[in-house]
């Protein structure tokens, strides 16, 4: 027999009371464990998105521009770069101005940092021009079902979204008509019957097959197919293709026009996965939004680009648009999470406080029920410190067990919380959470016992006789 063993026996002596104590600790530990797991996982998910998408600026029609309903505006503050803005547009013609302002702001930002000041003998830093990609979102009937169809300039798009990969198919070649030049694309129309036509009166090809304006007189009749090569290509988000069972080369009808699947995207766990992509020029004809785009993504081409500065400048100088920096969006998300975290933490801490208080009461009650036994232990030679150790050991074991229980429950709750709050983070579990749970369990258990244990270990033995007469 050792003091530890005695403590264990003592613990088993009051199974119900100890179970009550343990379960309140379990709840507190579980709450805190699940909360820290979820918030940690959510933060990691945010960091991962930023790491993956780089520092991208998203330019969208500003809230005041016509056609946007409040509900659609709400969707703006989402972290991914794939959020959909329906019903409000930026003229394509505004893009050069946007890019000019952007470049200017970036340059100014660098100069402010002292990065672009020319010093004789030292080569100037050359800023690569930023790349940009427009999108046009439209709800459309795809094979009889309403889907978000997104017009993209394919090569620009996958350059900006460098994390995109195809699981099957391939990207258009650099020379493909469908993507390179919007001027070329503007020669065709899509009728309300879905048929494609070309404005032969104004456009044609020269002897080398290059497209020219009709005013040049040397126009030959233009064969439709080669000019519009790739106009009916469709690329599918991974999740969409999977759900519809669509494969490479399959046909699909958008509104009344037929498209062919040329590529299927790898899933990225974003809204991108559920979209159907068609060439921008085709989308503009199909939806009668010639010269308009829904948003422009700008990918900064320098590490530590002063994108924040560019955002401020754009919002100040270009009317009708709102520029949002990826990091800002992430910041909003961070704020949201940290607010939620703080709120839940407050709930948990008050739970723990109430828990400790009730444990304290139970413990005090049960210890006073043990007064005679304490007298006996003292009489047979237990010193104050040895008595104190019995109580501490008992509650150490109790706290440890409750900590383990709370950890296991907390793991489960983390998954529930994650789906309940719609955080959608991949739950990441490290041993640090286990140690923390155990420490918390033990501390809760010990905090509740230390004072009564101290008081009782100092109890005079004579006083323990007294209770005998009273009981």
């Amino acid at each position: 027999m050792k003091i530890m063993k005695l403590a264990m026996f003592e613990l088993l002596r009051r199974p119900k009371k100890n179970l009550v104590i343990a379960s309140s600790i379990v709840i507190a530990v579980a709450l805190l464990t699940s909360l820290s797991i979820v918030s940690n996982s959510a933060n990691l998910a945010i960091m991962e998105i930023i790491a993956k998408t780089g520092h991208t600026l998203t330019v969208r029609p500003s809230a005041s521009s016509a056609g946007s309903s409040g509900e659609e505006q709400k969707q703006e503050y989402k972290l991914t770069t794939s959020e959909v803005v329906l019903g409000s547009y930026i003229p394509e013609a505004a893009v050069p101005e946007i890019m000019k302002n952007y470049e200017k702001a970036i340059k100014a930002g660098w100069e402010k940092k002292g990065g672009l000041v020319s010093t004789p003998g030292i080569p100037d830093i050359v800023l690569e021009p930023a790349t940009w990609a427009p999108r046009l979102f439209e709800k459309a009937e795809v094979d009889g079902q309403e889907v978000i169809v997104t017009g993209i300039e394919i090569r620009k798009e996958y350059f900006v979204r460098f994390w995109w990969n195809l699981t099957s198919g391939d990207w258009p070649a650099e020379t493909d008509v469908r993507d390179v030049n919007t001027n070329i694309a503007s020669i065709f129309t899509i009728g309300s019957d879905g048929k494609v036509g070309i404005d032969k009166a104004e456009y044609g090809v020269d002897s080398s097959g290059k497209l020219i304006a009709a005013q040049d007189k040397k126009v030959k009749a233009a064969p439709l197919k080669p000019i519009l090569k790739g106009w009916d290509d469709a690329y599918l988000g991974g999740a969409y293709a999977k759900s519809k069972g669509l494969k490479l080369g399959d046909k699909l009808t958008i509104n009344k026009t037929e498209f062919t699947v040329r590529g299927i995207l790898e899933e990225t766990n974003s809204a991108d996965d559920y979209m159907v992509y068609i060439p921008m020029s085709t989308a503009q004809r199909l939806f009668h939004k010639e010269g308009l785009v829904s948003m422009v993504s700008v990918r900064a081409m320098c590490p530590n680009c002063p994108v924040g500065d560019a955002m401020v400048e754009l919002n100040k100088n270009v009317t009708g648009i709102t520029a949002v920096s990826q990091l800002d969006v992430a910041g909003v998300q961070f704020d949201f999470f940290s607010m939620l975290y703080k709120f839940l933490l407050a709930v948990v801490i008050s739970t723990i406080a109430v828990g400790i208080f009730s444990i304290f009461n139970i413990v005090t009650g049960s210890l006073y029920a043990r007064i005679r036994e304490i007298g006996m232990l003292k009489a047979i030679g237990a010193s104050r410190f040895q008595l104190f150790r019995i109580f501490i050991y008992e509650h150490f074991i109790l706290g440890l067990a409750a900590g383990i229980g709370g950890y296991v429950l907390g793991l489960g709750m983390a998954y529930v919380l994650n789906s309940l709050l719609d955080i959608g983070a991949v739950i990441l579990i490290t041993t640090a959470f286990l140690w923390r749970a155990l420490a918390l369990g033990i501390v809760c258990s010990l905090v509740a016992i230390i004072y009564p244990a101290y008081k009782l270990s100092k109890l005079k033995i004579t006083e323990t006789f007294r209770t005998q007469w009273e009981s």
Partner: protein
Amino acid sequence: MSEFIETKGLKKIYHVGGQKVEALKGVDLEIAKGDFVVFMGHSGSGKTTLVSTIGGLTRPTEGTVLIEGNDIWKLNDKQLSHFRNRKIGFMFQSFSLLPTLNVLNNVVMPAIFSTNSERKDTEALKSKAISLLTDLDMKRKVNSFPSELSGGEQRRVAIARALINDPEIILADEPTGELDIRTEREVIDIFCQINKTYQKTLIVVSHSLTWLEKAKTIIVMKDGLIFKDLADPVEAIMEGVCKS
């Protein structure tokens, strides 16, 4: 030369809700080594208080308790615990057995708190406990739990527990309380054995007259003092008892 156990001017005042209760009013007492003392007296006369003051359980308000010449109430908590652990075997009614431990573990328990390392030799300790329990005719019940034992058997286990650390003094406060006459006699016989064979000094508090037959010394207490000038202690006890 001082006696084995000696008290000088022992006073104990309890404070109960602003009121003073003088349980001991200056007790001078000497007990020789190997004595078998039985304290008698009316309830509330201060027997328990006196005995627990001698055993290092209740601190006196005034006076000294000398054991082999040492004032035990000058010891600190650790030393006093050690004193109780090694010098004294207690048998108090309120010091019941622990219900979660079996007989063997209950007997061995004082050794847990021994600071002496030889006491931690669990095998030797176990065999000692078993031999004590065998002497007390309790060998069959070594693995039983207190709730499975009769009142007399529980007392035997408590005796074994009191003896496990080989103390020189056994203090027993009403060790046969609530027992029937036959069982009481058995327990008293055991005490006689302990006094004879183990040469322990026994100090027993009891209301029961059965003890008188076996005791070497009888001390009667009244109102916190020892009744000294007494020709016949039995008469002193009987005094006030309803006679026909």
